[in-house]
């Protein structure tokens, strides 16, 4: 499987000499690209550049224009701001809580489901359908599951003899765990499907040969499935890290950053600085710092993927 990203770039360098034919296509081609390019400039590139510029100004939502020039003051303020660091820490905490279970469990589910000869629709329904639910629906369901007094979770705890059940979302220690559990339940179907797709590429002759040689099912998984799925695993891990760093919805609805600031994550911090405190410049600086983290990981992902291609080829 070739890297989808690098093929065209290298591929068309070689067709340059044909340029004489293609020269007249420049105008019609740009007409095809124009509608997309317009929206790309307006809602992706433009805002990115604006955000970068605004991060050097005292921009506010209430006044028009960029405001006074602030240099690196916004960045200095953010880097010296304990709330910023705590929101980054909570984002990291959430990432640590969610990534390992989301990778391991989805792998296990996919490998097991792939062995089942029947009922694939049922496993897909059970594991994948939560993924298509709106985050708001997911949040409302889990807030109710965890709710003190009336929730099913405290009730189960009582059945098992806990006298004072943990108020999960109201406890600074456990609120993030509750959000993580919600997220694992919600998004595992995505990784499950990626792994199922990956499993289709493992030639079944390999298993048959291994079984004939007397390999136990566990040995087949250990020495065939896991190595054959390593590319999918890298993809899943990196997509998962990037997605977890952008967590917003569940926090916004389930705890709104609370109790206290124990679940304040990067994006809720940024929207609060921008929309509630009207400090666009400061929020832009924080956005840009988060942006850098995400891009570094995205680039790392490209590099790892490419290295794996090369090893495979």
């Amino acid at each position, binding site marked *: 499987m070739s890297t*989808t990203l690098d093929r065209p770039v290298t591929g068309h360098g070689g067709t340059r000499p*044909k340029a004489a034919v293609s020269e007249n296509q420049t105008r019609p081609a740009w007409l*095809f690209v124009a509608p*997309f390019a317009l929206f790309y400039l307006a809602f992706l590139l433009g805002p990115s550049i604006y955000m970068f510029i605004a991060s050097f100004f005292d921009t506010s939502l209430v006044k028009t224009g960029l405001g006074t020039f602030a240099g690196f003051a916004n960045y200095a303020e953010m880097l010296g701001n304990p709330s910023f660091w705590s929101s980054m820490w909570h984002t990291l905490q959430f990432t640590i809580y969610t990534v390992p279970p989301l990778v391991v469990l989805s792998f296990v589910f996919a490998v097991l489901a792939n062995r089942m000869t029947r009922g694939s629709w049922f496993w*897909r329904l059970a594991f994948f359908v*939560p993924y298509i639910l709106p985050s708001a629906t997911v949040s409302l369901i889990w807030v109710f599951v965890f709710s003190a007094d009336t929730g099913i979770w405290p009730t189960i705890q009582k059945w098992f003899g806990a006298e004072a059940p943990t108020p999960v979302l109201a406890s600074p220690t456990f609120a993030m765990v509750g959000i993580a559990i919600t997220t694992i339940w919600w998004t595992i179907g995505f990784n499950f*499907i990626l792994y199922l797709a990956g499993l289709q590429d493992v030639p079944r002759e390999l298993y048959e040969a291994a079984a004939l040689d007397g390999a*136990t099912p566990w040995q087949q998984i250990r020495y065939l499935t896991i190595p054959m799925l390593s590319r999918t695993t890298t993809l899943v891990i990196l997509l998962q890290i990037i997605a977890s760093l952008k967590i917003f919805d569940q926090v916004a609805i389930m705890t709104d950053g609370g109790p206290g600031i124990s679940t304040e994550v990067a994006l809720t911090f940024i929207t609060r600085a921008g929309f509630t405190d009207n400090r666009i410049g400061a929020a832009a600086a924080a956005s840009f710092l988060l942006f850098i983290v995400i891009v570094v990981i995205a680039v790392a992902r490209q590099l790892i993927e490419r290295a794996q291609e090369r090893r495979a080829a």
Partner: protein
Amino acid sequence: MASPDITGSARPARSRNNGLSAAAPAAKVVKTQTNGGRTFGIVCAAVLTVFAVLWLLPSLWAIKTSLTANSVAALGAESILKDLHPTFSSYATLLKGGDLWNWYLSSAITSVVSAALVVLFASMAGYALSRMRFRGRNIVFFAVIAGIMVPSNVLIIPIVQQLQAVHLLNTYWSVIFPQVPSVVALFVFKQFFDGIPVELEESARLDGASNWRIYRSIVMPLSKPVISAMAIVTFVGVWNNLILPLYTMSNPKLMTIPVGLASVQGSFGQRYADIQASAILGALPLVILFLVFQRRIVEGVAGTGLKG
């Protein structure tokens, strides 16, 4: 979650044609297994079933709660479990009130229009990138790759400011426009078009057909699978997007489902059955969509590595 966003790697060539029906390839393996294999298989089935049940429980709990009277639900989990008289009163109340219908309307309009624009614009640009040689092509291509890395949620503040500046806040456009430049969709279309044999269009080109004609009458009709996959994935992404409409729609009449649901928690207070019923009603169209287009949705997700 799911804005049609942008951290994806597109791998359509791989997943386009492999049916993801997990059962088929495994069948033969199981047959060749020894007795130890059969025990292993039973353990696997048991483990998987336990997890599947665990995964279904929260949804079933929400459904059960939604079918209980508010007064009973307020007494707690045990009362809800013991209540054996399902009632649809919460659903009736919600469907009678106007809010939910307004949210449905907003979500439907924004999702359908976004999906149509994404498919049209991304496929046109993908066609140019795949089939035409033009000056600036590399720039466009690098822009696409760079765009895949931009985390769109981080851009929420400048986007809202910009929409405010052009007086589009509190219009459907404020939810639609920012979701139109789906770089992932462009990428997937380009990859798909790369796989269509050039010979198909050559005779048309000799007959003097224009690029537009070839795109419309030859390339697009061949691309139905990827068109529907991208349309559905975009639809679901826009329907589920919370952060964008949360900050662009303050008019309750224009709220989309997620924003409306987010406001339910506070405004419904102790009406737990109503809250769960609205959560379920908000998701219902997507669940129906999933049941109808199961295969396409799954392929769309697997093919784009799309995650928000």
